[in-house]
């Protein structure tokens, strides 16, 4: 058992990662201790969970996430994830998790071919994963979205399986911003410890810096629930 205050959440930095500091800040605001992890270091330094943040690792030159998947840290993350450790992949991190085969499907270029940056409303479909247990099923949350290769694709059999087993965690609400199959914004593995999504919860954790909300401009903190969820999951474990 891990006390929430003592939880240590690793955040991996790859060459080209952009959102590692934001993810570390989100971890701190949720009440845990962020631990900076380096892609070339296989040692995860005893962290209780890992966040793979967004950015453009290795410039996305081969395919988004394709080269990062082979990093020493990712081999350790894959082993730990199969052992039940919570892992969250955000945007490029989601792409890395699919390339590493820890989550099914893949991401291709947005159907409209444009980079997109907007405040995106999501429907929480699965509120029982390690990263979503502080939300309610059906709840709508608003977090920033920014990507170019955000179109989630998988074959029909995989999509049916994701739906039938409750592994669609988030769907785009209203407009589908990148043409993702069945409006899927985020998914989980069978065990519910590995979650990946394209939008960025770590950019909606502190009043004054997040999306607009009912409370006022930039007051949205809907993303904080990811990080309090994992603390809750760790305490319960």
């Amino acid at each position, binding site marked *: 058992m891990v006390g929430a205050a003592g939880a240590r959440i690793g955040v991996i930095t790859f060459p080209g990662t952009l959102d590692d500091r934001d993810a570390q800040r989100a971890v701190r605001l949720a009440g845990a201790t962020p631990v900076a992890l380096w892609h070339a270091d296989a040692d995860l330094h005893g962290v209780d969970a890992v966040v793979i943040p967004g950015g453009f690792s290795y410039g996305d030159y*081969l395919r988004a996430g*394709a*080269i990062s998947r082979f990093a020493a840290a990712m081999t350790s993350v894959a082993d730990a994830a199969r052992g039940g450790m919570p892992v969250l992949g955000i945007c490029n991190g989601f792409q890395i998790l699919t*390339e590493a085969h820890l989550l099914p*499907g893949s991401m*291709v270029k947005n*159907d409209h*071919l444009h980079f997109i940056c907007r405040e995106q409303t999501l429907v929480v479909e699965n509120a029982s994963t390690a990263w979503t247990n502080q939300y309610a099923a059906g709840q709508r949350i608003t977090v920033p979205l920014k990507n170019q290769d955000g179109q989630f*694709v998988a*074959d029909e059999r995989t999509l049916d399986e994701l739906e039938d087993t409750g592994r669609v965690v988030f769907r785009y609400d209203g407009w589908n911003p990148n043409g993702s199959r069945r409006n899927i914004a985020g998914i989980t593995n069978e065990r519910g410890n590995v979650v990946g999504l394209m939008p960025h919860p770590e950019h909606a954790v502190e009043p004054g810096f997040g999306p607009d909300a009912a409370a006022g401009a930039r007051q949205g903190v809907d993303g904080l629930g990811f990080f309090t969820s994992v603390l809750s999951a760790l305490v319960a474990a």
Partner: protein
Amino acid sequence: MGRVVVEVMPKPEILDPQGKAVVGALPRLGFTQFVGVRQGKRFELEVEGDVTPEILAAARQAAETMLSNPIIEDVVNVFEAEVSA
């Protein structure tokens, strides 16, 4: 010096947004003959010596593990390139 070529294409059932953009632009330049475009990738792998069967096999393995993602892409060709002097 030898060279192995690896060609990777998006799977037929995957919508190829880049190909779609190109096929939309071609008629604007007067190329009205083409009704479909798919955009893929060509990799050229260089080796110091000759391309042996072992090197071709390694190139095939690299093509399937790293150069392509089997969920969205097919490796359509792996072959030794003609090296011009």
